């Protein structure tokens, strides 16, 4: 199998840029990354970045919030063979989407943050995950992304294949580590059963309940069962839904359940 230079680009939309920073934080492998692949665009790393050039793999960080974001991701989609949604903002809409479908009003949000009569020089929209705007090939969740998982994704492309994504919950990794279960132990409102694995159960390993920062598992979301589990541990169902919404704002299952609870069904 002939090795061919892989062309890779990193593109930011609206987010904290923490995922891109985490790529740059892979210090011991950074030279290898830049040697093995051709970085076509990565504004945080090189001023020689070119948005217009075609790439094999485009890593897009952030949620789509502005008109510029939308234009950028559509342009990238056209030039990229594979698009990877990088980070929970791109995969699920991120924390800024927490109130989507639960009484979110863009005007009110702007007023709250910037005050009355604030003038933007850009057009703002309610935040959306990447796949509500363009076709996404692969999801690399995390807030921020895990370095190991990023390297795995990149390596599969170098090996002219693509990554297998995790479709199982944090609990799997938590038990494999031999941790006690924070739900059974202390009745904590842990989102582990609901959240995509990959972090090595970082929070539960420290005795903290999972916040769900890697977003809900795409394939199957047991919203009712999660709410019931938390209710047994004294968390009000609406409160439980709000917790799930922090990183799963755009999940249809959660929004539906939320609306039915608010309507008092």
């Amino acid at each position: 199998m002939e090795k061919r230079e892989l062309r890779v680009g990193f593109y930011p939309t609206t987010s904290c840029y923490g995922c891109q920073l985490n790529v740059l934080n892979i210090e011991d492998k950074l030279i290898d990354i830049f040697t093995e692949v051709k970085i076509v665009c990565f504004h945080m790393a090189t001023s020689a970045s070119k948005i217009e050039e075609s790439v094999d793999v485009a890593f897009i960080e952030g949620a789509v919030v502005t008109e510029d974001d939308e234009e950028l991701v559509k342009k990238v989609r056209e030039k990229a063979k594979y698009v990877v949604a990088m980070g929970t903002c791109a995969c699920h809409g991120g924390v800024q989407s927490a109130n989507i479908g639960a009484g979110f009003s863009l005007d009110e949000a702007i007023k709250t943050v910037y005050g009355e009569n604030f003038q933007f020089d850009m057009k703002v929209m309610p935040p959306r995950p990447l796949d509500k705007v363009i076709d996404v090939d692969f999801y690399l969740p995390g807030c921020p992304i895990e370095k190991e998982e990023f390297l795995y994704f990149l390596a599969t492309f170098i090996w002219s294949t693509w990554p297998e994504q995790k479709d199982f919950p944090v609990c799997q990794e938590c038990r494999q580590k031999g941790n006690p279960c924070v739900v059974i132990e202390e009745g904590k409102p842990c989102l582990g059963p609901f959240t995509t694995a990959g972090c090595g159960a970082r929070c539960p390993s420290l005795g903290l309940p999972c916040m769900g920062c890697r977003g809900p598992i795409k394939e199957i979301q047991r919203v009712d069962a999660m709410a019931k589990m938390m209710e047994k541990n004294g968390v009000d169902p609406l409160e439980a839904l709000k917790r799930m919404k922090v990183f799963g704002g755009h999940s249809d299952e959660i929004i539906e359940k939320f609306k039915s609870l608010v309507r008092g069904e």
Partner: protein
Amino acid sequence: MPNNNPLQPKKAVIKKVFKVTPTEKMFVISFVDPKDQEEFERNYTRPARFVQVNLPGIGEVPISLCSPPTQKGFFALTIRRVGRVTTVIHNLNEGDYVWIRGPYGNGFPIDEWKGRDLLFLSAGLGMAPLRSVFLYALDNRWDYGNITLINSARTKRDLLYYEELEAIARTYKGDGVKVIQTVTREEVEGVCKGRCHLYIPQANVDPKNSVVIMCGPPRMYQSIFDEVIARGFDPDYIYATFERRMRCGIGKCGHCNVGSSDSMLYVCKDGPVFSYRQVQRYPELME
């Protein structure tokens, strides 16, 4: 390096690649080490067993053998481009290496069928494992009675081995071998129209002394079971192959389990070929 690890794949080389349909390619492969080839041939006695094709660093997939045990020095796999690993395999060329372990699975109990007529029913990719059985039967022509093979697919260009089967039909004309090829989604010259079971009445086999061998999507099995039994075929001689997720091929990884209250089976080890009587005993096979 020799070791006693049953999961150790052996290096093999792609000798030839044929494009069979727009989505399927046939790979003719042989092991690099003649000892591995010998061992493979020793273990491949019943047709339609399968191998695990391993691309180191990329992944592993189970693929049915489409060449019969009577062919020596190589084996053949027909692979549909459907997932991550098969996409990479499709990009391989003659001279490229793949790693193989196997053969696994039980294969068809073809020695128990001596003296009987054979009726093959295939839909889609099901023709790949059946090819190995069909060719085996032709290579041992004196052991079996009349043979009919009904090959079906959606369109003519999806029919696996269309040309090869037509050629065989011409060669064996007058020797009790009949090939019927049919498509379900189009009307086109040279092939029949409709599902394979429509052509069972045209088979040149004696129902009471026949073996029915089928491979296709499981949802076609029940209607064919019903149909052939109603037509007087012997229920003790009906066989089908079943698909499940498989990772190891030797009954360890647990994915292909199928159970009933008397026992849990592994399709990879106890199958993938099951008789109609086994299907009655393990109804989960049909689910």
